[in-house]
């Protein structure tokens, strides 16, 4: 017989399994008491299926098809990618449902779409047209400066951005089934995403070493619900899937976020604002799978053409600091 197994598994994407926080609410399907729709299990479960994958921003059906062919595990449908929202300014809102529906029709992979922070009616509309996931996103102009959407009220699952552990756990307590870093969208600059992921991981490590007494105090300090903080400390990771987002522009950026412990990657402006979108998209998909294999990373990073123009993140940043939206 033999040694029980544990082959060491690299840290990061998908290497740790993700238990789900217990269902907080489930909706019974009318007329069929034995099955239930929209449980937390199926909401967080879809995020688990996206792990190790890349979710790409697309503005039309043609881009969505390019993303699907390049191996995207989902697409985010929106009218303007963050780099354009920055450049043109004004209030950024939910996209036209007809444009989102065209993208849903064009691809077989899950389609996500963004709503403004706190705008629960935009979320009701997206649920009604059959989108697969909603991003309550700081990239759009917030509709409510105090309240996020009560996401338990929806059958459709939500992903939300977070800069630190407290913010992530507040979003999960509101019903988010999926967390991403905020990063600084539309800049092509990965520094903020790295800051946010490192903050989350560092706070998780801290919490994991704490006694129960200390967790009470820590929950107060980071303004997180105690039961979710305890669960996080026990699991030594966020209780839902955690992706990187905001400023990822190259395969190396994507692999960096994976090695820092993310389960997958969102790429917004980084693909369709670059020279050869299809090639770059495919390279980033491969980089996320082989994030721990520098030889493959080198191969896929070759000859990708021009990356999107990067912006320095300082007080003069055009379009402002999106990551500071949300509370």
């Amino acid at each position: 017989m033999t040694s029980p197994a544990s082959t060491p598994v690299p840290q990061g994407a998908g290497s740790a399994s993700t238990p789900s926080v217990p269902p907080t609410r489930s909706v019974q399907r009318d007329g069929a008491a034995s099955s239930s729709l929209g449980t937390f299990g199926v909401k967080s479960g879809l995020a688990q299926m996206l792990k190790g994958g890349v979710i790409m921003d697309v503005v039309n059906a043609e881009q969505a098809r390019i993303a699907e062919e390049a191996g995207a595990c989902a697409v985010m449908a929106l009218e303007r990618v963050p780099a354009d929202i920055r450049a043109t300014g004004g209030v950024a809102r939910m996209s036209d449902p007809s444009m989102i529906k065209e993208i849903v029709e064009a691809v077989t992979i899950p389609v996500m779409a963004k709503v403004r922070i706190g705008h629960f009616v935009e979320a009701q509309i997206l649920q009604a047209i059959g989108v697969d996931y909603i991003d309550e996103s700081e990239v759009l102009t917030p509709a409510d400066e105090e309240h996020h959407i009560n996401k338990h009220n929806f059958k459709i699952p939500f992903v939300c951005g977070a800069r630190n552990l407290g913010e992530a756990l507040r979003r999960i307590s509101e019903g988010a089934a999926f967390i991403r870093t905020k990063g600084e969208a539309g800049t092509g600059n990965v520094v903020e995403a790295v800051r946010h992921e490192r903050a989350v991981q560092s706070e998780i490590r801290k919490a994991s070493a704490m006694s129960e007494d200390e967790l009470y105090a820590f929950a107060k300090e980071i303004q997180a619900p105690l039961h979710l903080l305890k669960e996080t400390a026990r699991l030594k990771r966020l209780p839902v899937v955690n992706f990187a987002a905001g400023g990822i522009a190259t395969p190396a950026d994507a692999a960096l976020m994976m090695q820092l412990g993310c389960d997958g990657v969102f790429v917004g402006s980084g693909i369709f604002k670059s020279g050869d979108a299809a090639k770059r998209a495919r390279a980033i998909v491969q980089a996320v799978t082989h994030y721990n294999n520098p030889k493959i990373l080198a191969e896929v990073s070759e000859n990708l053409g021009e990356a999107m123009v990067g912006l320095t993140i300082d007080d003069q940043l055009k379009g402002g600091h999106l990551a500071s939206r949300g509370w």
Partner: protein
Amino acid sequence: MVYTVVIVYDSHPALQGAFAEHQKSQERLESNGEVKVVQVRTKEDLDKCDALVIPGGESTTIALLARLSGLLDPLKEFIKAKPVWGTCAGAILLSKVVTGAKKGGQELLGGMSVTIARNGWGSQVESFEAPLEVPGLKNPEDPFSGVFIRAPVLLSLDQPPEYPPIQVIARLPENVVPHAIPSDATEPLETWFGINSNLEGGGEDPKRVVAIRQGRHLLTTFHPELTRDNRFHEYFVRECVIPGLLST
């Protein structure tokens, strides 16, 4: 004796998807010292394995990553020789024919003589959980919680002579089925209703079938790895993997 069970997730064997969940479920079986689990991303990883689990995820992504990693042909060869279990996206990849595929079609690995429809229930808001009666599992009196996420639907179970017989392992409760008619099917509904099963006993509605076994392959349209119940993992090892290893 070491049995290596390769869990394929993600864009190949750990390519994209819920591979870590399968790994954890399978590792709970490791205490008996018979099962070792590795993640498969390359052909070298695959060569270590006596069996393979292809996880949930996006089947288009998994197939593309398999091709880019040079794993497509090795996987097809593997399926001809060794036990493989596909869940959800993995089930699609094991099927002979898929409907509702992306434009231009999608690559399959094949291995099981069934036709399957992608996203057979519709979008994510139609994803659901349902209790399943599964007589082949340990403690069969306890229902198994089936988690169906944008799940595929079996359209026909064919029985060509060159394939081993298909054995139905689990069906949905009858009161769930009326809701299972795809809301976004591109084919007219008659196509969905008119399907005949060639199984023994005949007249079985394949759309209710959510787990089948064919030879040493196992197919589930739901996600046993998302529950804490590892009876399906135990079943795969006991029924599909170990008998083949003992006979060689």
